[in-house]
């Protein structure tokens, strides 16, 4: 059915308007990071200003920036990888086997997905102290893996269910071991789910700062914690915190642009087909 060009134009206009609304605050973060102090506090707001890289220079020359970057990458990548591997295994186990305690595990997993992180802050601080995990990157990794597993398992469970068991059995008869069955049969079909699960895990592990603030010191800090220290009772160091915010945004944005189609399919497929 053909649509009138007027309707099509209105459709595009709405899409563009929404895209502008989505991007405006992100553009503000980036634009503010390029402003000088005098421009940041300009009244009225000046849309045209001379950009400066001064804020980035200041942030990058911070004596510990490379340390924090390393901490963030270490925590973000290892948490994501561990969550994906363990989440895949658990989703497969839940989808393919009937065993005692399966229901309890399924219900508990979903309930854990709902626990607010603020509730965990105090006990985690106490327990991690007893386990000597405070100020350690592994302590953060353990926490992020645990809180991201429920969502990952839920997401991947739907994808395992979509794969017919017969396909796996055929591969097994053809002489594939369990690992090869997984990599050759399941993995390709689960790719969108894995993309969505990994960006949503990485998003938490890379961006989270409240628990990280409680659990780290000046050596084990991650980038968002370092950024949060630019916000003080005396005010906000806007230029620098926005420069930091822009730098922190780079990895998730790259990941999103590269895998957008897979992420959206992965996110929606489970709910739509389930």
């Amino acid at each position: 059915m053909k649509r009138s060009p007027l309707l099509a134009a209105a459709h595009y206009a709405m899409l563009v308007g929404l895209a502008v609304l989505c991007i405006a605050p992100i553009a503000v973060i980036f634009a503010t990071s390029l402003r000088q102090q005098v421009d940041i506090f300009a009244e009225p707001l000046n849309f045209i200003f001379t950009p400066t890289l001064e804020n980035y220079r200041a942030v990058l020359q911070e004596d510990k920036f490379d340390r924090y970057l390393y901490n963030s990458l270490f925590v973000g990548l290892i948490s994501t990888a561990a969550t994906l591997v363990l989440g895949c295994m658990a989703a497969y186990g839940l989808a393919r086997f009937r065993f005692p305690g399966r229901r309890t595990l399924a219900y508990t997993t979903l309930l854990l997905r709902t626990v607010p992180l603020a509730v965990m802050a105090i006990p985690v601080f106490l327990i991690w102290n007893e386990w000597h995990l405070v100020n350690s990157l592994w302590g953060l990794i353990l926490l992020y893996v645990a809180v991201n597993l429920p969502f990952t398992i839920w997401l991947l469970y739907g994808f395992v269910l979509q794969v017919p068991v017969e396909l796996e059995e055929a591969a097994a008869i053809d002489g594939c071991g369990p690992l090869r069955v997984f990599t050759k049969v399941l993995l390709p079909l689960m790719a969108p789910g894995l993309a969505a699960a990994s960006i949503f895990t990485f998003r938490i592990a890379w961006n989270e700062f409240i628990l990280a603030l409680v659990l780290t010191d000046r050596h084990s800090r991650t980038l968002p914690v370092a950024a949060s220290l630019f916000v003080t009772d005396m005010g906000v160091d806007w230029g620098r915190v926005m420069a930091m915010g822009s730098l922190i945004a780079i990895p998730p944005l790259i990941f999103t642009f590269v895998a957008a189609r897979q992420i959206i399919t992965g996110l929606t497929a489970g709910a739509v087909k389930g």
Partner: protein
Amino acid sequence: MRTPSWVPILYVGPAAAIMAAACLYPVISALQLGLYDWSMGTPWSAARWVGLDAFAAAFSNPRVWSSLWTTLLFAGVCVTAEMLLGIALALALERPVRGTAVFRTLFILPMMIAPIAVGLAWRYMFDAQFGLINAVLGLLRIAPMTWLADPTLAFAAIVIADVWQWTPFVFIMMVAALANVDSAVIEASRIDGANWWQMTTLVKLPMIAHVIAITLMMRLVDAFRVLEVIYVLTFGGPGDSTEILALHIYKTAFVGQQLGVAAAISVLLLVVVAALSWIALRISNPLDNEK
């Protein structure tokens, strides 16, 4: 072929162990912590049993109840706005056009930005003197407003920030659900003479009802977990007008150093969220396919 009974444990065991140790155990400890007087930096063995004192202190504090109200209002308003906007936009824009993929990519960006940057971006935009929002309102001849200094406007500000970040998520879920509706059904209703409104309310929406339910639950649960954006945007102020329970717990624990009381309030928040989840799981458990 029978599977030996230890095989499932091999698959689910590691994840279950980590969730039990680092998620379930802390949650249970939160319940227990409320019964002790413990100070940060002292060993747990030095903690003193105080029974229900912390619970009594927490539940007799009117700020806890006003904070619970703020939380419920925040979750209710945000989720309602996000669902209505997301569904309306999806119905208007469900038809794929050239460049759809690009637009959808742009729509998921707000979810990916660090909450600290999101909170600060909005704080900067809502600033009364040099903020973008008052500048735009000025172009429309609307007088500048002191967004973050007025209790009602500050509440609106945290709602706007959350709606900005999560409406695109609802939109994308709804577009996917609508795309999955059997086109033969739509065609049949068209032949039967249904107009756009009838087709939408009597055919399309009922056919995506289960996706609407799942999305609603995901958003509702997450609305109770919001903390970081509000932490940097208003820090609960002015007064306690935007102090949701999660932030109240954080402040009580790490600013006020009253860990037992904070743990007791945590129990309150857990009960609210658990009640909601229980209702949702009664309706359907996506991890349970043995029907």
